[in-house]
């Protein structure tokens, strides 16, 4: 991947529910596909990836996730140590550390969150959330 490719904006961050629905849900495939078509990237935090791989139903599902996470348009996003206070705040609001990391990544990249757990992110409109069916 060239340096220019790595500069492509992250437009969409997948949370654990979106990642676990991949690849079988069209409600994940199409939003991710349109972001790629638009020349942008989708993001997954390292914490989310770890959670999803642990919860993936079987080896076949994990294989699909590995391939998605290795895709050229997937930004694998860190959660920095110096952000621990913000992480703590969002952990309190969402109830899970993977969701907290997802919120922080979305805010940092000014991206939307794709999820089927929209109720976890506070009242409607509280955060830039794109709802998908469970």
């Amino acid at each position: 991947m060239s340096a220019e490719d790595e500069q492509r904006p992250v437009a969409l961050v997948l949370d654990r529910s979106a990642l676990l629905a991949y690849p079988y849900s069209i409600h994940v495939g199409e939003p991710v596909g349109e972001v790629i078509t638009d020349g942008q990237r989708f993001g997954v935090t390292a914490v989310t990836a770890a959670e999803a791989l642990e919860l993936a139903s079987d080896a076949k599902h994990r294989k699909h996730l590995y391939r998605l996470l290795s895709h050229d348009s997937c930004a694998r996003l860190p959660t920095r140590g110096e952000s621990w206070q913000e992480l703590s705040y969002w952990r309190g609001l969402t109830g899970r550390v993977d969701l907290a990391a997802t919120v922080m990544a979305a805010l940092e990249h000014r991206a939307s969150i794709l999820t089927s757990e929209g109720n976890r992110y506070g009242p409607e409109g509280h955060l830039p959330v794109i709802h998908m069916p469970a």
Partner: protein
Amino acid sequence: MTKRRVTVSVPEDVAETLEQQPNASAYVAQAVRDRRRMDEFCALTADAGVQLTEQGMAEARARRLQVQAQWPRERYEAVRDRVRQHMQDEADDAGRPAA
């Protein structure tokens, strides 16, 4: 990155577009990479039996752009500033001696 010269034939309209580019090679390289990324992603989903549709992706884009319109840059910054201030206040409180 190593580069290689490749000669291709293209339709007239494509040739005109390339002639207007300050760097036609970079333009073509970007277009090919964009297309390859999408082809690779379609292959991944097809392997799981899921076929993406143009209409579905257009609807997904409309939903994303709707959220994007409601969330200008300033709104993201405002949320981050509010959370940072909240946590700073909490840290300040924690640093004060107990009454």
